């Protein structure tokens, strides 16, 4: 299956390699680097590249390429999914997934990779299992380690791999037993220039942070489960219970995990929390243009909209902008032609506005198309679909856990065409 893995940084250097079968020369990456050169944007590099003897499947994540070498037929998604798991694992262990972090912890990353695959076939990908084998670094432990010379490798061998509940480690103990659930919803929308919704849908995810001792068996129920149209679960969730009773019944992994993701079935009824009044025009003479943007709250269910960020991909010919923002600040990156306007909290009384002039490359024709806006926003304490957690029950353990649910709505791929 997966033969080798190379980590490649944005400038095309290979800074880590791992082979699970015989060694593949790193020259195989040249095909990939060539494709990367050709692509305008790293995102445009095709994920699957075929070379005379190997197939290269890569993902681009956190400004790094994870490039795997394959020799025989394998479902490409299998590899892609695994590579993302690797990136998530690094993120989980070290807080971020970047070249520096990986270089700093190269031995541990290498050991993790060793455990995750055997002969190219995934062996242990559950974070709970891995963490028992190789303990994640903490400040305290690294101090202790340097003093005593002990290591991060678990001296006990993991039981999770062997238990019938592979996602949970055994013998969990906490003094404070707590379970937190974050219901995070993202609005994906495309609005056309008149503000009409071309397409809108809500994608949600229930993130959990469960720190409970022993082997708790949890049941989470919703007030209005009928809202959920399509769901996918962490392997711990008992699908049958969901099918019959629409409750989530599960023995949770220890720590942070994604319990479920869902899709809300309400294509036309999606509340759009903000509106944008926009006008952009370029003078016929071709030397400049004007931009005027106003953002205001629309259907917010009485909550404040925070963290509003407007991103505009300007036409290539826009050289510089001279704008005036009534709220927040803006930046314009001339290299990528991206205008970012960081607004922050929306005040319904005083709507933020950004206006001013654009200067264009002289002699260039008037841009054909108006750019599109991407909007980022956040609304605390609200699940825009109206989904509500009803209750959380615990069985199997005696103590009373502390429970909490948080709702948050964000903009997903929220695009306004101008």
């Amino acid at each position: 299956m997966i033969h080798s893995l190379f980590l490649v940084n944005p400038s095309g250097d290979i800074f880590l390699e791992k082979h699970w079968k015989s060694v593949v020369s790193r020259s195989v990456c040249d095909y990939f680097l060539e494709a990367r050169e050709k692509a305008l944007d790293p995102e445009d590099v095709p994920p699957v590249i075929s070379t005379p003897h190997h197939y290269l499947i890569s993902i681009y994540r956190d400004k790094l390429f994870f490039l795997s070498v394959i020799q025989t037929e394998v479902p490409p998604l299998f590899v892609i999914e695994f590579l993302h798991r690797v990136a998530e694992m690094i993120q989980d262990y070290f807080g971020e997934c970047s070249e520096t972090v990986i270089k700093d912890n190269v031995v541990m990353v290498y050991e993790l990779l060793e455990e995750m695959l055997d002969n190219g076939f995934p062996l242990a990908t559950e974070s709970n299992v891995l963490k028992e084998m190789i303990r994640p670094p903490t400040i305290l432990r690294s101090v202790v380690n340097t003093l005593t010379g002990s290591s991060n490798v678990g001296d006990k061998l993991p039981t999770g791999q062997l238990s019938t509940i592979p996602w949970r480690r055994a013998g969990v103990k906490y003094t404070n037993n707590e379970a937190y659930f974050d219901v995070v919803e993202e609005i994906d929308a495309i609005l056309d220039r008149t503000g009409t919704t071309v397409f809108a849908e809500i994608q949600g995810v229930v993130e959990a942070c469960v720190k409970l001792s022993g082997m708790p068996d949890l049941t989470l129920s919703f007030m209005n489960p009928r809202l959920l149209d399509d769901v996918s679960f962490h392997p711990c969730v008992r699908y049958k219970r969901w099918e019959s009773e629409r409750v989530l019944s599960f023995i949770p992994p220890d720590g942070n995990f994604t319990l479920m993701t869902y899709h809300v079935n309400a294509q036309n009824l999606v509340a759009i929390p903000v509106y944008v009044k926009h006008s952009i025009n370029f003078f016929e003479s071709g030397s400049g243009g004007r931009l005027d943007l106003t953002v205001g709250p629309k259907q917010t269910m009485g909550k404040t909209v925070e963290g509003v960020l407007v991103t505009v991909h300007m036409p290539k010919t826009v050289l510089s902008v001279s704008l005036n923002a009534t709220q927040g600040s803006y930046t314009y990156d001339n290299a990528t032609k991206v205008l970012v306007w960081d607004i922050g909290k929306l005040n319904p009384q005083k709507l933020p506005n950004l206006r001013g002039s654009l200067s264009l490359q002289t002699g260039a024709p008037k841009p054909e198309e108006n750019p599109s806006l991407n909007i980022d926003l956040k609304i605390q304490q609200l699940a825009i679909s109206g989904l509500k957690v009803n209750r959380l029950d615990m069985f199997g353990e005696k103590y009373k856990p502390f429970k909490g649910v948080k709702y948050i709505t964000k903009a997903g791929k929220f695009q306004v065409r101008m």
Partner: protein
Amino acid sequence: MNSQKRFSALRAEAAGAVRTALGSAENLQLTLKTDLSQEEQHLTTHAHTDRGPGETRTTRNDDLKEMLENNKESLKLEAMKRIVGLIAKGKNASELFPAVVKNVASKNIELKKLVYVYLVRYAEEQQDLALLSISTFQRALKDPNQLIRASALRVLSSIRVPIIIPIMMLAIKEAASDMSPYVRKTSAHAIQKLYSLDPDQKEHLIEVIEKLLKDKSTLVAGSVVMAFEEVCPERIDLIHKNYRKLCNLLVDVEEWGQVVIISMLTRYARTQFTSPWREDGVFDENSERAFYESDEEKTRDDTEIKPYTMDPDHRLLLRNTKPLLQSRNTAVVMSVAQLYWHLAPRNEVSIVTKSLVRLLRSHREVQYIVLQNIATMSIQRKGMFEPYMKSFYVRSTDATHIKSLKLEILTNLANEANISTILREFQTYVKSQDKQFAAGTIQAIGRCATNISEVTDTCLNGLVLLLSNRDETVVAESVVVIKKLLQAQPSQHSDIIKHMAKLLDNITVSMARASILWLIGEYCERVPKIAPDVLRKMAKSFTSEEDIVKLQTVNLAAKLYLTNSKQTKLLTQYILNLGKYDQNYDIRDRTRFIRQLIVPNEKSGALSKYARRILLAPKPAPVLESAYKDRDRYQLGTLSHTINTKASGYLELSDWPAVAPDQSVRNVEVIEPVKEWAPSLGKTGKSKPAKSSDDKFYSDSGEEEEDEKGSGTSSSNDGSSSSSAESGSDAESDEDKSSSQSSEESEKSSSQSEKSSSESDIEQKKKKKMKKPPQKKNVKPPNKDSDSDENGNLARKASSSSAEDSSDSESGSVTDSDTEHQKSKVKPKEVKLQKEVSLLDLDDFTPGPATQPRSVLSPSLLTDLEGLSLSNISTMQVSGPAFVPEKSHNLLHRMTGKGLAAQYQFTRQPCLYQPNMVSVQISLTNTSDHRLEQIHIGERSPAGLKIHCFNTIEFLEPDASVTVSMGIDFNDSTQAANFQLCTKEDQFSVSIQPAVGDLFLAVTMTEQDFRKEQGKLQGMNECSATITVTAENTSSQPLNRRVAAMANVGVVPSGQDNVHRFAGKTACSGAVLLVTVELRESSAAVITINTEKSVMGSMLLRDLKKSLAQA
């Protein structure tokens, strides 16, 4: 025997290899010191000459060596960490091999791990030195800790050193029968490694794979299937016996294993089942299908007209994979989607749509693959994705390849109804800054225009508007597409051609210019005024044009010469002259050819006569079709599909067979007792059951949904005849609200009923529990029915006939099967609800498994545990019969039956329909000269007799015969079951008289358990007799056979030679039956039978006496 021998040979071979390994190791060690220094020197000098900063490098490596040779663990560790760092960076650290390998036996786990990492990386390069470490691994392979055994095997098999192949082989074989499933999993991985190292070992490895395929642990399943796929994917026969097990385990296998198993099963299913797609399939369902009679029944009742019936195994696969669509792992979802695409009936494929669309929310790379697959699917099945059209709308932030895939799909989805929406969307895209994408959109518009004739004109007009676009690529693309469109229907579009002729002045993209010229040439008769003028202009600029434009100019000239030579003769001559001296030989050639063709002179042959027909022949319009049109020749979701060429190792998906191969190959006859030990993990062990049962349930639930309409005799029983309103009324009320309530109720009632059914002896009840599950294990799906049925029946008894002792009673109203079917049709909803209820009550155990006393666990819950190899709870397993008597008994003589002859035979298999029934096989033969119609079972006596009827046989041709199976609850008595066998015209009373031995089910247990059970069944439960056995029966084999022939009991392994033990249980109540035959001197033997069914015991004793004393 043979394998034993081979094994020992292998062992000897391995030992030999070890010896050589050790020998060379010793030598090396002796010479290590001196050798090394030389080698080292060599290396350092090498490094010196090789690279500039070699000095620092070598000194560092010297450091590392020093550190490794130090006694301090921490220094060694530090050194190893740095070495691994070097490896990770791809630097060469092989010269440190001797220093590193010494630490292989270190006590420090981290150090050891790092050394392993190093070894695996460099052993291939330093084979001789690597042998030093082998003995350490061999020792570790015998370690009591399973994880150490596993990791030793893992490293040993990863060291790619050919000399140790025999050692590896031996280690794999041993690990394959290890107690720990984790070690067995590792051995499955090792198989692949060994195979890649030495393909000659294939035959041996297949043996191991075969063995591991039988493994019931979910941990092993994925890995061994992976090994199977890599080593011997052609040995599809190895799968047969494991097919149902794999299907049932699937939900519990880890996600990566699921992907592999699903893709293997997809291939398997394509070779074993017939196509569910064809309309006219003719099937003989009755033959060989007795096993699944009840399933057949349902489908047949509903769809009398449709001749195709899906193989139950085929259905099982579809049903058990469906829940995996909800997996968080995109690869799993995709593999289920492709399975449905390749295997499911057309109308069921669309259930995967929603999940595939969900994947589009995932990472860019995932989107790419999924969109590719959707593109292929959407060509064949527009309807599947049309409702989700908007999900394929393009965002400006999408990567270019994602954009073009989405465009592709949108184009595929376009139809008369949605084309206006799509075109509006396309309008936005055309204006995109990404010009490549805009060009793609124009092509897409062109495709829409050709595919949907209603919008051709609109599209064409739109494209013409684009001709005035400022961007040249857009214009050029439009011209090219318009050219193609006009070619399809040139009649009314001379305006457009004129317009394009005007464009020629401005447009510079050569492809577009060439297209315009071609168009004018092709339709020059429609624009007679403009064409010569265009030619004039082109003549002027000819020399500065691109080659492709020049060629088209020559073409245009030639065509005009033929149609309008008066005006263009000179121009043509001029152009041909220019072309004659062009730099490009293509153009020179073309010019010469055209000149010869069109200008008549003495040299030109017959060809010029046909010049007009050659040049102005009507040309077929190009077909604009998707690039994904032929991709479906590859299995979806594969690498080959993505790259659109066959990847190495791609396994072709075969076509459906015209006739299904024998399906009985998948029947699993003998259930081996599971000898696995799951590690006890405190509460883990207890809580898992709940989970597993859940999973099992949902894997089974599909069946309920699928089949609910005709849902067998059993469930309709529940639904229709529950006069004691509880469940009935619930069924009427709102589904959601009542579900929890009713589940409680039914739980109550079922537990109640269990209470009443047992003979209030707790101990016995426990036993019964323990024995029940295995019996169901044989075949899952029908079980479910029988389970709920049992519950239902019992519940009914409990409520209606006040606490009658079920095991003795013969009450319980059983309606005629025909009316049941009718009822079930009338009240499908009730049936469904009832089903759910019976499932729910089991689910309700899940929340507090740790606190639930075991006695409440329902039998089926235990069954599911079995599947998960937690079987140490139960010590008794129903096994297959040791002996199946071939003798069949006459049920109906052909004379009395007016041509219908019937024979019956006890199959001694656990009954599928209900566990407490005895399975009887009936073969019906039509000896008359006319066809007999509607053969079914009519009235029966005694009135309470419970029979699971075979489904009505519609007709039986003369001389044809059919075998059906039915279940009869004899209630642990030898009283004959009387019933009527009816044809359309006649009714015949028949009776089935069981021998006492047929009322048992064979059970396997250990000697220890046997003694324990025997201890409980003393006194009046014991009967014994002393007999004189014939000489031939004194040895164990014939004795065992005799006893097994007499009664369906299983042999219990015995420690003593002269004592033979057999165990069984009664079919109905599940009471234990223990038979002991003790041989004494001078052919005397004591037969002892222990059972609480003393009547049966004594009857059996009588039969046994007779049988053993027989000569």
